[in-house]
Each structure stands twice: as C-alpha cells, then as structure tokens.
C-alpha cells in the first residue's frame, strides 16, 4: 500500500542534544532539582578550592626550617616531609643502610607490577615471589654478602608495613583454605572446630587479637623461649586474617556447581584429589578479587601495631612529627602518609575491580 521510497537523511542531532551543551543538559541540568543540585555542588567545589589551594599550594612552604613555616601567612608546611621523610619511610633502620629497604620496596613494587599482568601468571611468578622473600630477608637483615647486620627490632616504616601484610597473607592463605575445607566437611568434629575458630576471630576486633598475641604468646611457651614483639604481632595478624580468608575461600567453594563435585566423584577421585585437582583450582580463581580486597584491608590494618608499640609507616610518621619544632605540622604529615596508603590501596582496588570484570567475562562466556 505504502512504500517509502525516499529515505529520510541521517541527520545530526539537534545541537542541544550532543556535544558540550548536550552533555551538560543530560548530566547536570536534566531536571529542575538536578540543576539546583548542580549549582550547590559547584558552589561547594569552589568553596573547597578557594579554601584549600592557597593553603596547600600558593602559600605553602616547600623547603626550609620550622621558622619559615611559622611565618605569618605561610600555608602548608611541606618542608616537614622533606625533613622527616627518611624516618617516616624507614623508621629506625640504620641511616646509612637505608638504601637496602628502599631497594626491597622497589623489588616489591616491580613484582606487584608483574603480578598485575595476567599473561605472566604461572609457576615462574610464584617462584619469583618465593625468591623475593629471600631477597627481602637478605636485604633487611643483612649479615651476609658483606651487608652489615640490622636487627629486626630496628625495622620500621613502609617496609615493615609491606612486610607484615605480605607475610600475613602468605601464611594465612593455606590456613584459610584448610579452615574453609574444614567448615564445609561433613565431619562434625572438624567442622565444629573450624566454625568455632572462624566465628570467634571474626566476632572480636583486631585489637583484641593483637592484645592477646602480645599478652598470651609469651606465656604460651616454656621459659627461655622468647618471642619478640614483631613476631607476636605477625602471629596475631596471621591468625586474624586466616579466619577472614577462610570465609572468602568458602564463598568460592560454594560457588562451584554441585556437578563439578559429582563429576570428580564419578571419576573415582578421592577427597583430597578432588579438592586439589578439581574444586580448589576453580574456587581459588573465583576468589582472587575478594582476596585482593582482604589484602588491602590487611595492609590498612597493619597500622594498628602502633598500639603494641611497633614503628610502622603511620607510627613512624607520628613519631617524626613529635619532634618539638615540627610539632604543629602533623596535618601535612598525615596527608603525606594518607597519600602513600592511598596510592597502594587505590591501585590494588582498581586492579581487583578490573580482575573481577575480566574473570566474570571469562567464566560467563
């Protein structure tokens, strides 16, 4: 009946729909209330900028003495960071040997970078991490290869923070897997023990676990065996983290369809073979993103060691600004430390989000 023979031309949308104007209309002024909101937000941003920029940049003192910073009209005193940087980053580590922890951090970052590239995932990477642990031991303690020995009671700052979180996750990982398997096993005694442990640890604050480690561990061992503060804190962290990892792994185990278990049974695999060859490889893959998140929280949580007197990054910074002439510049110091933590945590969390997307794409093919 009707056929349209001439085709309507493909037109550009009206100018109010695209480009800068279209974007503004669609994203900032798409309704009356949104326009009001936009204006309020804009005012807020302007307010923040005019309050912060002169202080943080225009009037800031970048280098100099406390006198310069106290001069009237002076803004942020970034000089304090230049002055106290070494102590903040490395704590009481022997001053002349501080290139060693610096190198160790460099190695760590390199390896973390490599681990973010999925093409490199494999056995070699695992060995690289094992090698890294030895490198760290050599670099940090020294005493071999002509390096002077530095007692671990002197360790502090960023390397301590990194080390405690890495060791905690590396040790807690296998414990967490065992706990998760125990919690899902059909043996009541094993299940009961695992559930009790996991719920106990997850029900109490980390501080109390650290207290427990620092109060009880010395009592647990026969006289003559002494466990120093660092190790105690490390044990506390590991115990704490393992309960959380157990729940992460359990979620992964639950996500594996029943068919996989049944197929493994049908192939005649025993319990351990089934877990090791079929279930765990899939489950652990699924839980990499939440594991990264656990790592991020552990990394942030290591700051709690301040309570039992270890000098981690946060505590080192705090001690550094306790120096009387610099005392009033703690805000700058906290901002600096916050930036360091932020850089690490933000990168890792973006990585875990990307990973999650990639993995879910790979599995939902």
């Amino acid at each position, binding site marked *: 009946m009707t056929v349209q023979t001439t085709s309507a031309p493909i037109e550009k949308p009206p100018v109010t729909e695209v480009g800068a104007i279209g974007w503004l209309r669609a994203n900032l002024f798409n309704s009356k209330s949104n326009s009001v909101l936009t204006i309020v937000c804009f005012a807020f941003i302007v307010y923040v900028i005019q309050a912060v920029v002169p202080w943080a940049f225009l009037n800031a003192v970048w280098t100099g003495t406390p006198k310069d910073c106290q001069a009237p009209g002076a803004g942020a005193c970034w000089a304090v960071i230049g002055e106290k940087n070494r102590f903040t980053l490395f704590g009481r580590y022997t001053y002349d040997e501080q290139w060693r922890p610096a190198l160790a951090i460099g190695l760590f970052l390199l390896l973390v970078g490599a681990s973010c590239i999925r093409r490199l995932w494999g056995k070699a990477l695992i060995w690289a991490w094992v090698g890294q642990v030895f490198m760290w031991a050599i670099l940090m303690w020294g005493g071999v290869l002509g390096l002077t020995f530095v007692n671990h009671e002197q360790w502090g700052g960023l390397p301590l923070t990194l080390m405690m979180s890495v060791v905690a996750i590396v040790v807690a990982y296998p414990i967490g897997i065992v706990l998760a398997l125990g919690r899902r096993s059909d043996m009541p005694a094993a299940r009961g023990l695992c559930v009790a442990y996991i719920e*106990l640890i997850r029900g*109490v604050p980390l501080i109390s676990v650290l*207290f427990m480690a620092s109060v*009880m561990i010395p009592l647990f061992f*026969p006289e003559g065996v002494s466990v120093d503060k660092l190790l105690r804190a490390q044990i506390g962290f590991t115990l704490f983290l393992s309960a959380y990892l157990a729940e992460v792994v359990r979620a992964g185990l639950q996500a594996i369809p029943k068919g996989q278990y049944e197929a493994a049974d049908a192939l005649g695999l025993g319990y351990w073979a089934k877990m090791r060859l079929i279930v765990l490889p899939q489950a652990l893959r699924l839980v990499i993103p939440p594991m990264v998140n656990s790592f991020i929280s552990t990394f942030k949580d290591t700051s*709690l060691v301040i309570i039992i007197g270890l000098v981690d990054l946060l505590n080192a910074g705090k001690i550094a600004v306790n120096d009387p002439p610099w005392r009033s510049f*703690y805000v700058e110091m906290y901002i600096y430390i916050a930036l360091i933590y932020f850089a690490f945590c*933000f990168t890792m969390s973006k990585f875990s989000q990307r990973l999650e997307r990639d993995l879910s794409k790979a599995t939902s093919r």
Partner: protein
Amino acid sequence: MTDRRSGAQVAEKPKTAFWNDRDVRAVLFQILIVLGVLAAGWYLVHNTLTNLESRKIATGFSFMEREAGFSIGESLVPYSAADTYARAIWAGIINTLVISVIGIFLATILGTVVGIARLSTNWLVARIASIYVEVLRNTPLLLQLFFWYALVSEALPGVREAIRIIPDYVFLSQKGLRIPHIVANDIHGWMFALFLGGFAATLFWRRAAAKHQEATGKLRPLFWPTVGFLFGPAALVWLFAGAPLELIKPVLRGFDFQGGGTFSPEMIALLVGLVTYTSTFIAENVRAGILSVSKGQWEAARALGLPNNRSLRLIILPQALRVIIPPMTSQYLNLTKNSSLAVAIGYPDLVSILNTTINQTGQGIEGVALIMAAYLTVSLSISGFMNWYNKRIALVER
C-alpha cells in the same frame, strides 16, 4: 533344586578391612584432630600456668572487686576513681555501646545518602560521592582517627575563641562541643507521655488509613498527620503551660566553659571517623543493592503508571533491601569492632579501660578474655537478630 550356575547365591557382603571403611576412617580422623587440638591446648595451658606461677601472677577475676584508682574522662554511669574495676569496665561497656549505636545510626543515614548520590544522574553529584568513597576507603581508619583528633584538638580554636555554632548556646572548640542542658520541669513528664500517646495514635491512624484504602481505594495523607500526632499534643501542652524552657547555657569562665553538656574531642573524633569510614562501605552496599534491581522493574512500574516515588517504595526498595541488609549487618558489626580503636585516641571505651586495667593489675589473660567475651556477645546477638530479620524478609519474598 537350585542350579549352582544360576548365580542365585546371596553374595556375602565383601569384607572390608576396618581401616578402609569410610565411616571408621572419618571417626578416626576426627578423633585424631580432637586429640591434636587437646594436646596443643594442654601444652599451652600447662606452659601458661607454670609461667604465671613463676611470675607470681594470680589468676581469676578477684581483681574486679578492687579499687580501680584511675579516672575516666567521660562516662554515662556515675563513676569515680574510688570505684571498683568492675564498675570501670561497666562504664567502658556503656561508652562502647553509646558510640556504636550513635555511629550506626549516623553511618546508615550518611551511607545511604552517599550510595544514592553515587547513582545520581547528576554527574557532579556522582563524582563527588565517588571521590568521597575512594578517599576514605583507601586510607587506614586509624590514620583518619588521628587526623580528626588532631583537627579537633589542635586546629580548632581555643576555648576563648570558640566557634559559636548557635551563639550563646552551642560552642565548638578544642575542648569539644559544648551544648546547653535543659533544666528538668514537671511538664516534661507530661510531654513525654503525650509523645508516647501520639505514637500510639500514629500507629492507629496508619492502620485505619490502610483499612480505608482497602475499602474505598482512597489514600489518606500520612506524613503530616504523623508529625502532628507525634509532636502536636506535647507542643500544645507546653505552650499552654506558658512555654517553660530553662536552659543552662555553657558560660565561659576562666579556661573552660561551665555548665551544659560536652561532647569531648575524643568522642567527636571517634564518631566522625567511624561514621565517615563506615558510611563508605554502607554506600557501596546501598548502591549494589539498588543496582541489583533490574531496569526492567522500573520500566514495568512506569508503564503501569506508577509515579517514581511509589515505584521506589513499592517495587524497588523491597527488592533492594533483601540484597542490602546482610552486608549492612556486617558493616554494623565492623563499626562496633572498630570502635575499639578508641584506645588510640584516648576515648574511654571498653578496650581502652581494660587496657589500663591490664597495665595496672597485670591480669592480661582475664582482660583479653573480657574484651573478647563482650564483643562476641554483641556480635553474636546482632548476627542472631539479623538472621531472624533476613528470614522474615525472605518469607515475604517466597
């Protein structure tokens, strides 16, 4: 007449060696585990007891009856340094609960607002909300607490130059937030009773409104009547009584304010830190919950002619809440547990009081046990309650 080759024999149950029997194995394995745990436990307990003996530390909770001898900065229960440790610990428990309850309340509101803001179609609002979330999530809570504490106790003006939030009544200074006290008046009892009565009336009104709607389809207003019932009678009585209001204003005398109540710098820093930090996690939960409801649900609701606010209340929220509530619970628990960081900035919560107690008495084991027992009680009861609630919600669903 059985044919031997017919295979009609009843096959004897094949003999399995008992160590190959699955059930036996499981039992043996479990016995081994339990024995191992017991042995390790016994070893540790034994060592602990010997160590305690050699250090001459008495065990047990008898220290609770002794005089504590330290004072507590702020406490809701009457307490002085002459009171027992038990009372000090009680004051700590109350402080922890107060912080947690206020914190949870505020964090829920803030978190919900931020979570919704992150989904806003307004680009600027969404950006600001996501910056807020990223910055606070990716730095340690302890650092934030130090920061807030330093900000309150040092960056704020001294008492003499206190910021007058409400001139003459509310002051903010290095010494904390100072608010007026209301002098008790007989009328308050009546007003409270009327408020309760108004609450009952509100419930009644709402139920009647629902009935009315069922019967006639007509909607009755709910918001203003609710406000009216709750506050109207109390306000009227107050007005008729001649609007008696006597405030004890904080007055600057010497180096500090006198009169009125205080929120200490420690409490402010702790609350601000806990609330902002937790709100970011709650915001993420809220956002995920709302996103979990598919776009089709909105479209179907709109296509039926439901206005946006009704679609949200009748269609979207009931579904989103199912997703939001379980992780929200664990955030509440986290906030409660994180309140123990109070010890680092000197707010006298349970952990910080027990810390002092441990240092003074040397009763480390008992102290840690008390902390754990207290938190476990809270954790287990909150998660118990939430399990019940989740079940209820799940019932509505299916």
